[in-house]
């Protein structure tokens, strides 16, 4: 398992868990980020915010938030 912020552009992964507060978890869930959801890294320059594609939606996340979301890379 790696944190979402370590995912490279065009890499796909499955969300496994969050270590983030309840209200943030709620907001992530309403935007489609739940354990089991597939994410596709769209933009990640290694610093600053990043963009992931999840359930057909582009979601922007701060680097700090992405670091607290744990994913498993899909074996290609």
């Amino acid at each position, binding site marked *: 398992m790696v944190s979402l912020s370590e995912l490279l552009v065009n890499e796909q992964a499955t969300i496994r868990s969050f270590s983030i507060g309840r209200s943030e*978890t709620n907001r992530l869930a309403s935007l489609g980020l739940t354990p089991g959801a597939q994410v596709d890294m769209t*933009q990640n320059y290694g610093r600053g915010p990043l963009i992931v594609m999840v359930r057909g939606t582009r979601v922007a996340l701060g680097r700090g938030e992405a670091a607290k979301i744990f994913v498993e890379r899909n074996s290609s």
Partner: protein
Amino acid sequence: MSDRQTTSVPEQPVMVGEKLPLIALAGQPNVGKSTLFNFLTGLNQHVGNWPGKTVERREGKFTFNDRRYNLVDLPGTYSLTANSPEEVIAREFVLRDQPDVVIAVVNASNLERSLYLVAELVTLPAPVIVALNMMDVAAQEGLCIEPEVLEAALGVPVIPITATRAAGTLALLNVIEDTLAGNFLLTPRLPEIRADHRIALDEILNHITGNVPSPYPPEWVALKLLEGDTEITRTMQNTLPVEKWEAVNAVLRNHDDALLAVASGRYEWIGRMVRAAVVQPRMGQISWTKRLDEWAAHPFWGLWILAGILGLVFWLTFTIGSPAQVWLDSRVVGGLSTLAGRVLAEAPFWVRGLVVDGILGGAGAVLTFLPIMVIFFAVFGLLEDTGYMARAAYVMDNLMHLMGLHGKSFLPLFLGFGCNVPAVLGTRVIDSKPARLLTILIAPLVPCTARMAVVAFLAPAFFGPNALLVSWVLVLFSMLILVLSGSLLNKLIFNGQRSAFIMEMPLYHLPNSRTIGLLVWQRTLSFIRKAGTNILAMALVIWVLSVLPGGNFQTSYLVQFGKFIEPVGRWMGFDWRLTVALIASFPAKENAIATLGVLFGNDQGVGLVQSLTSTYSVASGLSFLVVTMLFIPCMATVAVIRQETNSWGWTMFNIAFMLMISIAADSGVYHLAHWVGL
């Protein structure tokens, strides 16, 4: 799960002219809800606030088949959990006001995400109709959706529409009519949750049954408790007998992962719907959005694009706004003044003075700012409607970190360029309290249209062809002060903490002229209303103070007051007139010019611009421009700061802070300018 037919069927209003059928429009952000609202109501809409909140409430009426309907636009929300005031408003409205129909607008090109709200809505006791919007976008992306299959799977009517081209809206209206007449037997399929949590849910339901306050359905309350909804948890803690609350709490403690289980349950439900209804999935083509974002959301190029767009806005203001302003000033206001002077030639001096100097001089000057306001409203509406606003937040996230804020704070601050009042109100999108307070405190440092209008009037007077450059530098200077103030306040008061940045990046789409047109119309109308009362009143007060006592201007109260505090103004290179104009800008920033107009009104036959340039040095002019950018927030902004911070302490702190900054920075600028010989 609950059986909605038996629990609460809203009464059917039969008689025309009695109570109008109430229809609520619900939907997530970026699904085209406003477009549908504007199409149905047109100019027949009213914009206000939700009672006790500062969230915008839009309500309108429309007629279909000779029957009138009341349409309420609920705030756009991703879910109905108590994460934000908007979400509480939306669900409380459905529960308490009991709309006859709830139209849930979903984005056909993004079914999976936008059905999430529907999954929550169907558990509430109101008939739901799904408006499957953006069918055109879905088709462009190669998605093929079968609305009939979705309808059968959901158990509620599904109507495909394209609100931007008004396609399918007739069918939607027919279904609303049929639903009100009771022609549909609604049996929505409800989302389910995992078996082990199902047991917990039943246990909670057992404990709370009989103690749930109306109008909340017990099943729904049990689910919200399991989700850890703050509002419902508080309500039930206050209503339940202690031993029952303890029992509920014990169940909740054993299921603290239930929040994600409930959310996953909803997505499983959605997954089943989508698999059934989407015949041909999205093709792997690279979308326009992705291609544009490679530039607009790029950490380097994105900033340049943003700077370019802001530059374009100011360029538009000066090339279209300023000439229109001059025309309005000389032809309309000037013409009316001459006419009024001629008509009232025989009237007593004070009547002529009141009409020509007070009313026409004050309110007329404000009306000449309209072209600039309209340009700003239109440009910001355009950026919002195309989806660019989110990119601006995204690329500004890094810079906002300097102040302990994140990209979302950029949106309200950006709005501040139009007017600081919506900027302060707009801080509601920021979820953490300290970040929100900090954004409110620095928002008045964003130069608003009213201040830019003063700049647009004075900069050409003092700097001629260099006016545009000077205006740019003034804006950059304000931004620098804003960043410095933000990081200072963050370190001193908030110990450098920061909140979460989680935001949808909507698809780019072509702007809708109707949506933007109505937005510009509504905002301009509210500006005129403000100008018509607040600013006109102030202009009259200024005029009265300038003739009392005894009708001699040189001995008037206004001159006496200006001379009294002139020593402070002199640090910044002001005489008493500029000092008075600055003070008069408190009720509304644009009053500065109106006041100078009244103060120099005695110089018969000489335009205000000539009076000013012949009276003041360039250094004083520059100094006045700088202080205009940084001075204490206007009256309306102070009022909303008080309302949004809910504290006179923070409001007073904000005013004192800005007063200090403006006097310190401006004294520096004046003496520097004086020293280099301006």
